[in-house]
């Protein structure tokens, strides 16, 4: 007898890769400067400059940030065994944002560009460690959400405090806009900045994959199957802190991608925590690139921020999940 959902879901992966291969060229060819890279606008030099220096970094960062958010959302949901876990809701992103704001605030961002992502990683790590200490062990739904609210509120308060004492209104505005979450006006330097943090982060999460499967049966059973819940926990927390910290450092807070994506895919992978990781990465990238593309296609006015768009779409989705969970069917 063939084991149905237990086998690798090829159609799903193929569809996600196809979607990615569709949206990447589209994003490279679309922008405010012109309808395409050239199409008679400016010379070939200008077209090449727009393509490689403006659009390519934006697309690459969309891919890396979106993929990271999808992957880390799936990993956190597996670790906490809770479909509402998400870097943004749990305060990981705001912790990272506060870490980055501190770097901004002390004017270190310009001096040492690597300090910004490191500050963000430290912030996200602190937020996750606090969360786990407050509510992680039992994995109960209310405890985690409440801890996330508390961490979010505290990180936001500290960030506001930093803004309050900002040296100039321009500095405050810069911080504020960066926190809204955006992929605009980034360069390839940003890509090289985040990759050394994201790649080990992803690797740690992939190493935890089988432990996440075992955790489906609870901590004791996972341990009896040879997977230490502690090891799994620190791989996921460390990996998420690295990858999400780096993502927040370059793109600000882009919320809800990590909530929506794993949730939509979970049943398609037969509720395997490990098999959710790859598709969540791909779909997170597709969703983020599509949202960013939509922003660029919107006519005129100041450009909408990516984080604003994902929050506008994601918050109602979250509300629906909460309402369903209150009726007792969380999955």
């Amino acid at each position, binding site marked *: 007898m063939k*084991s*149905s*959902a237990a086998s690798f879901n090829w159609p799903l992966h193929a569809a996600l890769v196809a979607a990615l291969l569709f949206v990447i060229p589209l994003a490279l060819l679309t922008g405010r400067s012109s309808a395409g890279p050239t199409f008679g606008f400016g010379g070939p030099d200008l077209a090449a400059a727009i393509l490689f220096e403006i659009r390519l970094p934006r697309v690459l960062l969309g891919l890396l940030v979106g993929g990271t958010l999808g992957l880390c959302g799936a990993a956190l949901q597996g670790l906490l065994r809770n479909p509402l876990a998400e870097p943004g809701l749990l305060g990981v992103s705001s912790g990272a944002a506060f870490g980055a704001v501190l770097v901004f605030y002390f004017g270190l961002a310009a001096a040492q560009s690597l300090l910004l992502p490191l500050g963000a990683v430290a912030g996200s790590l602190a937020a996750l460690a606090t969360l786990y200490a407050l509510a992680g062990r039992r994995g109960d739904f209310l405890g985690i959400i409440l801890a996330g609210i508390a961490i979010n509120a505290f990180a936001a308060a500290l960030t506001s405090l930093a803004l309050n004492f900002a040296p100039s209104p321009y500095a405050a505005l810069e911080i504020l806009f960066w926190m809204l979450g955006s992929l605009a006006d980034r360069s390839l330097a940003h890509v090289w900045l985040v990759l050394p943090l994201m790649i080990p982060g992803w690797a740690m999460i992939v190493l935890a994959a089988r432990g996440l499967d075992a955790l489906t049966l609870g901590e004791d*059973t996972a341990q*009896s*199957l040879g997977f230490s819940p502690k090891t799994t926990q620190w791989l996921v927390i460390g990996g998420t802190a690295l990858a999400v910290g780096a993502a927040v450092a370059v793109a600000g807070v882009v919320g809800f991608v990590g909530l929506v994506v794993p949730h939509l895919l979970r049943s398609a992978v037969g509720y*395997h925590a490990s098999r959710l990781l790859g598709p969540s990465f791909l779909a997170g990238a597709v969703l983020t690139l599509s949202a960013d593309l939509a922003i660029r296609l919107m006519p005129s006015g100041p450009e909408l921020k990516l984080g604003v768009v994902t929050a506008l779409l994601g918050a109602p989705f979250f509300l629906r999940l909460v309402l369903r969970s209150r009726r007792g*069917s969380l999955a």
Partner: protein
Amino acid sequence: MKLAIDAVAVNYTQRIAVRPTSLELDSGRVVALVGPNGAGKSSLLKAIAGLVPRTGTVACDDARLDAGDARRRARTMAYLPQSPFAHWPMKVRDLVALGRLPHRAFGAGPSPADRDAIEWAMRETKVETLADRAVDELSGGEHARVQLARAFAVRAPILLVDEPVAQLDPYHQLEIMRALADYAHDALVIAVMHDLTLAARFAARIVLMHDGAVVADGAPERVLDDKTLRRYYRVEPFLGRNDGQPLIVPWRTLD
């Protein structure tokens, strides 16, 4: 196959759960671990499985089972907790397949041995017809059988089960105990139990614990007699026989 438990003790911060305990247990039978609430049965079971910090050693055929080799221990001992659950509504077959995790290398798909073990475990527990159902749609009795299939799928020579029949109706209690007894034909099953009649019926050996220590150990009739039940359970029992096997019904409390 022989399981040797030597001076195993469990100390929680506020109290001693298991005093130094040594037991030798042989394959081919169900051993029931009985005793009143708080006697240390579950703690001893978890200590054997390596799920709680313990002192002392546990060895299978002279090979020590330590935390250092988690994978070998996971293949040697399967553990089914009290009221097991699944956090995600997987299909029954996928849940049972989780029992094969200790046998699978990183990134590898299921091997023919894995598939055989999964199908065998589902057959033994009579859950083949449920294979494609979601686990959150099962009745209590069905769910208990599926979780048992998950533990069977490890195909470990030692199976540790904590109150496998709590919260089940009489039919499912008998069914689960029958499946455990069958598993024990070529394995050692250690079951924490509260139902003494079922324990006496299906276990070849009863280990009675009280206040963190083993106070009686042997064949059911010898351990579960009137005097022992009065002393350690503080109940006046009704003792009878059916089909030549003991019936033990706690009748009223003693104070």
